[in-house]
């Protein structure tokens, strides 16, 4: 009989503890009540795999609404922006991220265009230095241009030519 009462008491205490802690957790969670703007700030960095090239904050599909609810819920639970992005990335792959991280094969994405641009710039510079060696600079061009009155003459010359 006593054992029964003891066990019932333990169960009651456990139940009360759960209810109490649950309430405390809820109260704590309610302390972090994310605004739509906070949810949007993360949403616009994500793309759902279903919608075509539309960031999550601008998409009206049911799936995207659920994703935004998930972000809100995670923010409520105190998750950081990076943790939330990582969560979606782990769940659905890095295609959900607006910008792939610059590691592994994706390093190519970020470094190839500037590298090619630099190579292009080097080629052009080299081309110029090669041609400079053959150059016979017409110095009179400079001296003529430096003449303050030449501009008037140049325009007039240009204009008369086509009249």
């Amino acid at each position, binding site marked *: 009989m006593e054992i029964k009462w003891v066990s019932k008491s333990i169960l009651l205490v456990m139940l009360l503890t759960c209810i109490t802690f649950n309430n405390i957790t809820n109260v704590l969670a309610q302390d972090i009540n994310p605004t739509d703007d906070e949810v949007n700030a993360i949403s616009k960095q994500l793309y759902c795999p279903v919608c075509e090239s539309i960031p999550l904050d601008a998409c009206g599909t049911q799936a995207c609404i659920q994703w935004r609810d998930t972000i809100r819920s995670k923010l409520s639970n105190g998750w950081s922006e990076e943790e939330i992005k990582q969560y979606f990335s782990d769940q659905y792959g890095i295609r959900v991220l607006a910008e792939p991280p610059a590691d592994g*094969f994706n390093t190519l994405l970020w470094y*190839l265009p500037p590298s090619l641009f630099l190579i292009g710039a080097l080629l052009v510079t080299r081309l110029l230095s090669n041609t400079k060696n053959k150059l016979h600079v017409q110095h009179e061009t*400079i001296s003529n241009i430096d003449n303050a009155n030449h501009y008037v003459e140049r325009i007039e010359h240009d204009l008369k030519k086509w009249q």
Partner: protein
Amino acid sequence: MIVNLGYTALLLALICSLYSIISARVYINNNKIQWVDSSRNAVLAVWFLLTLACLILVYLLTNEHFEIEYVASVSSRAMPWYLKATALWGGQAGSLLFWSWLMSSYTGIMMLRDWSNERDLQPYVITASMLTLAFFVSLNVFVENPFNVLWIDSFGNITSSMMRPDANLMFTPNDGAGLNPLLRHPGMIIHPPMLYLGFVGFVIPYSFAIGALAVGRTDGVWIRATRRWTLIAWLFLSLGLLLGGRWAYDVLGWGGYWGWDPVEIAAFMPWLTGTAFLHSVIIQEKHGMFKRWNMILIILTYALVIFGTFLTRSGVLSSVHAFAQSSIGPLFFIFITVTFTISLLLLFRGWESLASSKTLTSWLSREGMFLLNNLLFMGILVACFWGVIYPLISEIITGQKVTVGPPFYERTTGPQFAALLLLMGIVPLVAWRITTVNRIGHLIWKPTMISLLIPIISIISGIFNFAALLSLWLASLVFCVTIYEFYRGSIARSKSSGNSFFISLWQLISRNRRRYGGYIVHLGIVFMAVGIIGVEMFQTETQGTLAIEERMSLEDYSLVYKDLTEYPENDGRFVTKATLDVYKNNKLIGELEPRRDYYNISQQRMTIPDVYSTLEGDLYVLLIDWKPVGPQQATFKVYLNPLINWIWIGGFLFILGTLVATWPDQRDRHIITNNKSILQPF
């Protein structure tokens, strides 16, 4: 049956296209003029036949012939007549037909010009352009037939074909699916034609370039012959991009005008190479330099035009603008590969002959600056192209799907756009062949000092963002230098002629339209840059759920939710419209009515913004569905887009400048007449 007439016209158009190529080839072999005349007549016949095919399809669309598969897929009874007609380019088959018709119009007009100076090029020009046209017409004839009829068998299975299958009856649905709601916008009525006109327009200078390569003419005759064609193509492509931006702003409901979407970039890439080409050909015309480079640029532009059409039409990449998906992707891929390879082979064959007689003398010359300009355009192109194809490459090589979103493009192209602005500020003051730092310094110091006022005023106003200050300074530098160029020229002319300043300004522009039209384009770009800086760097937004009479604020603005109405429209939409009072600094300034349209047949929803628009910026309000919308409460997303309208104002100026530069000039005839003697093959 009229459908059969339409398809026959298509089939004959394909036959005539092929005939024009064959007869051009015969002319090359036997040099008998009647063959090239016959080829030209075939080109004109293609235009007539494609016009007929287009008119028949428009007739079917506007008269609700839903037994035609294409009509049933893009049209519906509830659509107004003008949308039914413009549904011609609202779906895959129709837009390909429309593309072909526009191209046949270009080639038809091209054939009517005086060919006496370029007779040797004519058969090659016909071959290159008609080969492209034949490819597009063959897509319509064999893969995407817009005249396919719907058939139903005894089991209720519906198929489509030109010929009636055995034991089938013609099937006519009660109504069509209607045009994609995203396309039911005034911008969409003219955006695709503008874009297509830009795309197909570049086929003409490409065909001339191929002709010049084939016959071995390196005298630049192809450049002079196609200068206006190139400018017209560039004008339409620019217009198409601008209208596309406006459409996205009005319809897509995300507060922006440019999302670095693959299809947007696909249209932007030929614009980049086309712009580089427009600058680069000036050097060839003036000094006979960059001949090889100009060939490369026009070949690239052509390849990118086909690549852009391929991206838009094949559905190979995810995009908000990809309204069609079909099996034509591999055919496009083969065509791009074949034409690109042939073009490169021709280029390599004539490589030595294309060497310039003059060399670049210095970076500090207009030629050097134009080369830098081209380098920057190519840098932007590489970033764009790489960003577009990278998801495919990643998936093929690593099996991993990735999204390349706006941050990539903004970071990789931003500095290059800034450098282009700087060049635009310097180049007008740099002389041909060579100049000195002192000389540039002497000319630029006044506009620079004035331009510094803008960042100073910005700092006083509380703007400390370095990137924004730098961009604003660059934009103001270009503005000041360009205005200074107009001023110097007009003053110079006024002093020498004794005319008033404004008459001198008019004469200055009208007698050198190309240069000053270009400067007007630069001014347009300055205004557009100001708008882009405003939106990209200072856009703010907020979102909230409001009950009736509740208020939300964003900077100086506040909005009060007043009412919600829901009603059906007779075009098949069910509209949910909210009414909000708009206050600025607590003063009522107007009312906005953002709405959501639900299309019953296609079950698609559109979020249509309402905008309070001023030169200072736009207050852009969306009724969104984060929570159930109702009279009790509704969720609104509000953007404040500073200076955005300067993009559209800049766009008008941009177009005006291009028109000035394109307008026929006595000078052109003068040059052609003077150059007849030097038009010799190498």
